[in-house]
């Protein structure tokens, strides 16, 4: 199990869900200046092949719906990183009528990066932390999501303004 987790933590594919302003910090992180591939992390275009879902900022209700759907399309184990203060408490959109305030009410977040916006160093730092967490078996948001699905669904349904909401359509 330890070896399994260790190898998992060394090869992470990341889908960056570029919402909000934070996406602009991703190019330097990915390219030669900070070069996140040193840590075995490469960007991935589709959720089905991705291990990390990086949410780079505020989410409107409309976007959240797409995020939840993408998240549910990812294969286990999967990790979510909330990037920027908008995902933590709404950031400077704390009283906006159309953005959600706490990302972890809707999908399980393993790690937050504070800042508005965080610099590439902090993103790298978060990746290193995530690697440690995976190796230790602490990054288990995907298990929490399964176990508490009902609770997450209720929260999602509340902002989507429906009785019951299922991300994957029947």
């Amino acid at each position: 199990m330890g070896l399994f987790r260790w190898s998992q933590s060394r090869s992470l594919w990341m889908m960056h869900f570029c919402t909000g302003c934070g996406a602009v910090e991703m190019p330097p992180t990915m390219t030669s200046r900070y070069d996140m591939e040193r840590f075995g992390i490469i960007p991935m275009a589709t959720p089905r092949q991705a291990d990390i879902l990086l949410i780079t900022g505020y989410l409107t209700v409309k976007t959240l719906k797409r995020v939840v759907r993408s998240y549910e399309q990812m294969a286990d184990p999967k990790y979510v990183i909330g990037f920027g203060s908008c995902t933590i408490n709404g950031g400077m959109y704390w009283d906006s009528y159309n953005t959600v305030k706490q990302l972890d009410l809707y999908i399980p977040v393993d790690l937050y990066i504070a800042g508005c916006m965080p610099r590439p160093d902090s993103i790298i730092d978060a990746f290193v932390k995530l690697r440690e967490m995976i190796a230790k078996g602490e990054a288990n948001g995907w298990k929490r999501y399964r176990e508490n699905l009902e609770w997450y669904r209720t929260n999602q349904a509340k902002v989507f303004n429906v009785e019951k909401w299922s991300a994957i359509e029947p």
Partner: protein
Amino acid sequence: MNGEMEILEKVKKAFGEKAETAPKWERQSEIKVPLELLHPLLGYLRAQGFGHLAMISCVDWIEEGEFELVYHLWSYEKRLHLLVKTRIDRENPTVETIIPIFRIAETYERELHEMFGIDFPGNPNLTPLFLEDWDGSPPMRRDFDTRKYVEEKYGMIDLTKELWKREEPVLEGENGED
């Protein structure tokens, strides 16, 4: 200022006293008309070379019980910006669509319909643009209480509490799980 005065004179001549015209500053003038003159005026201006409807904005004069619609027109030949303003009743805001004059208005009217609850009969596509699953009153109206809505719908984090000291994420335990 010559170009401005020229077009304002023309409008005065064509629409009479009901059209209040005023130059605002260089390259920008405003024309205020009652609602029944709006469509003829926009058609007239389009024929005069104001072919670019840049946007339609709306001002909520809540104290006077009125919305003011502002149609921003630009002419590439004259290099002039015209603000065509008209006031409508706030209780029952209805304006005939201007799609026959400016095709682009479809999207602008759709947005105003969503944000201010103004109805545009004749516009075939007044479906939500940004606000999927919206359940409040139109959010750009001044009597929409943003903070109350946010508190009820999304919940606010109490920033006076030291969140980072909590032992586990708020969500756990909610479910009665260990």
